[in-house]
């Protein structure tokens, strides 16, 4: 493999603790190495440019059944933006739900090299893997959803952690999944009857278990197995005024539980798109930011990580396994609604949404996301996301960086709001003068998510031994710049290396990379009861046979298996 020496860039790397010093980065055999290890490298001149590790996205909806519903039912999302292939690039299309090919390239253009699909319905695992196979460049993994799974509901009703863990291990293997995802625990099962679970104590119809029991039980089962990532949580009551109390109640369920993982993470719960979960008030008329309460809790509890779910003020396509929420949303905005309930496992909904700067609530949502990040004491525990495409498309990450790094940029946005005064009144953002630096951005987009995922041995930094994922941006932090320069530079990496292969050269896609699919093979003790339960459920309630459920390997062209041994 080619050797590369990226010379004289301004390095921002939380792993090595480098905050903008000029240094060289060496890549050999797919890994970062000491510069002395190179013999005849190709030299990339990064003088006056910013150099970071490849970006890591902990939560985005980029592949799978509901994403494809979003594509197929929104031809308007492709209006005027379908582009021909050129060079090695294939045709592309789509804005908020781009085709898989555009997804891969657009992430690469932002300097991202690893993206996790945030919700994989287990029955649709093949579909998710087929889409990831067709997404170039990126390393990807997918989180199967567990929070409404009948096995889990039945085991956790009696707090059977060992059985839950054995089932998780089996399902991760059957679906080639990466982590334990929980979406509106119990609520989506209730949605099978058109109902919901509004708070952590609202029992699930028939199953007679509360969301609190599901959440706590899945955290414990996750730690029992010692999986790389923690339980990955989307709490009940998303998107409703006054829901911050439900969020805090959910956080509190992690108290007293310590991480048991050999993969270097410190958290036992990752709570995703917290912006949607930080609302005060009791109606859309008086909804207000409760980011301070939320971040007060997060800052003082280091066994939690979160991501933002920043609203980007675009027209987008919402999609979530939170089926009842999407129904709620279609009643709110009267736009088309797709729903896809999945037997024994989960559900999902898809509704287009327009986050307009002319709507007060959208302005408030925009403020809350930024407040979360600006109130964070430790940027290693809060990650930059838009819950793509729910709060906005991922291509806006550089714009969010601009807002986080520049009060001037935030003020410009405030001035563009139709109801500026009302937005300011309901939020705290206008009074904040904190401006994040590139080191903190690297924490939020590289080192932090990599650590939270249990992948800090591969991604997130520039230390020798890590994967050769390196982005070079046309950005000189030592020269004066306008806020828009940030967005421009980070939208369009000058060079990008993925596992030691140069995939972007001078802003152009130069190689389709050697994408890998990450999945976790957890070995748990033999559990005859769980295997019997699995056989029974497939015989009686599933509409596919057990032997046709497990995906075969060929969907994963280049699998990267992370082995976990939980046998004791």
């Amino acid at each position, binding site marked *: 493999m080619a050797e590369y020496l990226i010379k004289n860039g301004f390095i921002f790397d939380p792993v090595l603790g480098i905050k903008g010093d000029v240094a060289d980065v060496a890549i050999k055999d797919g890994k970062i190495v000491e510069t002395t290890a190179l013999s005849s490298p190709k030299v990339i001149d990064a003088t006056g440019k910013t150099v970071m590790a490849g970006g890591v996205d902990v939560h985005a909806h980029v*592949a799978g*059944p509901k*994403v*494809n519903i979003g*594509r*197929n*039912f*929104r*031809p308007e*999302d*492709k209006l005027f933006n*379908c*582009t*021909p*292939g050129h060079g090695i690039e*294939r*045709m592309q*299309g*789509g804005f908020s*739900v*781009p*085709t*898989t090919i555009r997804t891969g390239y657009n992430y690469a253009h932002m300097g991202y090299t690893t993206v996790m699909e945030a919700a994989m319905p287990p*029955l*649709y695992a*093949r*579909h998710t893997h*087929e*889409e990831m196979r*067709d997404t170039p460049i990126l390393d990807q993994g997918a989180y199967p959803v567990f929070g409404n799974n*009948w096995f889990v509901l039945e085991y956790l009703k009696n707090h059977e952690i060992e059985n839950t863990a054995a089932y998780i291990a089996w399902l991760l293997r059957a679906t080639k999944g990466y982590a334990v995802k929980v979406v509106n625990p119990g609520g989506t099962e209730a*949605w*099978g*009857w*058109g109902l919901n679970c509004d708070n952590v104590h609202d029992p699930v119809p*028939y199953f007679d278990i509360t969301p609190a029991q599901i959440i706590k039980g899945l955290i414990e089962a996750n730690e029992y197995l010692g999986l790389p990532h923690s339980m990955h949580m989307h709490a009940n009551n998303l998107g409703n005024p006054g829901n911050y109390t439900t969020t805090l109640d959910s956080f509190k369920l992690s108290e007293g539980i310590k991480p048991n993982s050999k993969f270097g993470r410190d958290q036992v719960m990752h709570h995703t798109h917290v912006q949607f979960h930080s609302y005060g008030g009791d109606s859309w008329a008086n909804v207000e930011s409760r980011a301070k309460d939320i971040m007060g809790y997060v800052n003082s509890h280091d066994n939690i990580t979160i991501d933002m779910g920043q609203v980007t003020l675009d027209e987008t396509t919402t999609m979530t396994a939170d089926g009842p929420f999407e*129904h709620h949303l*279609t009643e709110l905005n009267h736009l*088309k*609604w*797709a*729903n*896809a*309930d*999945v*037997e*024994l496992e989960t*559900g999902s909904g*898809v509704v287009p949404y327009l986050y307009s700067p002319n709507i007060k609530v959208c302005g408030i949502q925009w403020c809350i996301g930024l407040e979360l990040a600006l109130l964070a004491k430790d940027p290693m525990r809060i990650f930059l996301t838009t819950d793509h495409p729910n709060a906005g498309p991922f291509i806006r990450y550089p714009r969010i960086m601009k807002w986080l790094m520049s009060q001037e940029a935030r003020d410009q946005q405030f001035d563009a709001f139709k109801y500026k005064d009302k937005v300011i009144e309901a939020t705290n953002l206008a009074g904040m003068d904190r401006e994040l630096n590139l080191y903190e951005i690297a924490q939020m987009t590289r080192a932090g998510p990599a650590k939270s995922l249990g992948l800090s041995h591969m991604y997130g930094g520039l230390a020798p031994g890590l994967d050769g994922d390196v982005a070079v941006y046309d950005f000189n932090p030592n020269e004066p710049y306008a806020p828009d320069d940030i967005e421009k530079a980070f939208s369009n990496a000058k060079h990008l290396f993925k596992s030691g292969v140069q995939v972007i050269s001078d802003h152009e896609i130069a190689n389709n990379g050697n994408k890998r699919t990450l999945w976790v093979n957890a070995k748990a003790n033999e559990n005859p009861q769980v295997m019997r339960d699995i056989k029974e459920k497939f015989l*009686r*309630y*599933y*509409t*596919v*046979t057990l*032997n*046709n459920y497990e*995906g*075969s390997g060929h*969907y994963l062209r280049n699998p990267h298996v992370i082995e976990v041994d939980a046998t004791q």
Partner: protein
Amino acid sequence: MTKTVTDVICPFCGTLCDDLEVVVSDDGKQLLEVYNACAIGAEKFLHSQAKDRITRPRMRQEDGTWKEITYDEAVEYTANMLADAKKPLMYGWSSTNCEAQAVGAEIGEAVGAVMDNTATVCHGTSLIAVQDIGIPSCTLGEVKNRADRVLFWGCNPAHAHPRHMSRYSIFPRGFFTGKGHTGRKVIVVDPRPTDTASLADIHLQIEQGHDYELFDALRVAFKGEKLPDVVAGIPKEKIYEVAETLKSGRFAIIFFGMGVTQSIGKNHNIDAAIAVTRDLNEYTKAAIMPMRGHYNVTGSGQVWGWQFGFPFAVDLSRGFARYNPGETTSNDLLRRDEVDAVFVLGSDPGAHFPFNSVKKIYDLPSVVIDPHETPTSEVCKVHVPVAFVGVEIGGCAYRMDNVPIETRKVVDAPEGMMTDEEFLTRVLARVKELKGV
């Protein structure tokens, strides 16, 4: 000794049964028995064993007779035809696996083809309606485990999806439906007294072509508003009764077929059907599902969805993906003479397209990839027989509820036969050479 292969997936209809058992000879070359399948499914497996099966490509001669050619020659002809054409139509894609569909999409991209699948004369109207209004749906297991109100509208699963009713919709006993069919109310809307209608608790024998009105009348009835005495040939009392039956269920499911997608009103009928389902969700839980025909028509819509963003009628001829049903749909293109070559795989337009479309195929350079001799092979210039997907080669297929299932290989194809994917991969390589990409 014979061997029994279990958990076999039936590559016939969108029901995609996956519990078949197939007995094969010890050497794996002969397929002897098929269990659990419906009559059509069993025939599909057994037909692969026909002694007079065509196993090599054929090219039509001047005098109308066939001449056997090699696969190499067939690849060469197909690649040249596609590469030379300004705007070839690549149609079908519904009776093959997703792997082949993905390669086909790449060929389409390389040659600037119009990609269309059988939805174009089937549930394409449903896909358009979904783009208008969305679709609250679910997997078939949700129906099995929860549904207590089942409505079939313009479809006849007793004949078209024979095991649908026993596996998913009427008879099975699921988790919350322990009483099986006695716990379900079945409603059939069909102008004909079909075999499915004979199983119904209520059969609304609607006047043909008046589906939209009856959907609308149901929406009125849900709200308890006034109806005319008779709508679409159905007395209003009956409509109120059906509305009440649906509302009073715990979980209602509407299945619909070509009787409503391809009759007067087309996509507007489906708009109305989905609106009925949306309305029902105000009172109870309700879902709606198209009864997709070919076993993997759904899959081709999925593959093109993630590669191009559109489920059918994808025009790649300008170098980027365009979608405009009515303009970029197969029959419209053929009848307006807008395509200059036709490639067919996994479908039989010769049997299902209007006659004047079929005549156009006859007049154009044309290739059909199909294990069978079909009306389409009768009008094409080259016929390339291939291995049966789901019998002689595996690969992914999507059920009518979009659930992906990997079909299985149970016997070897006759010596030397190619699969869809192998043939397409060869064509793609040759097209790239010809196009210099």
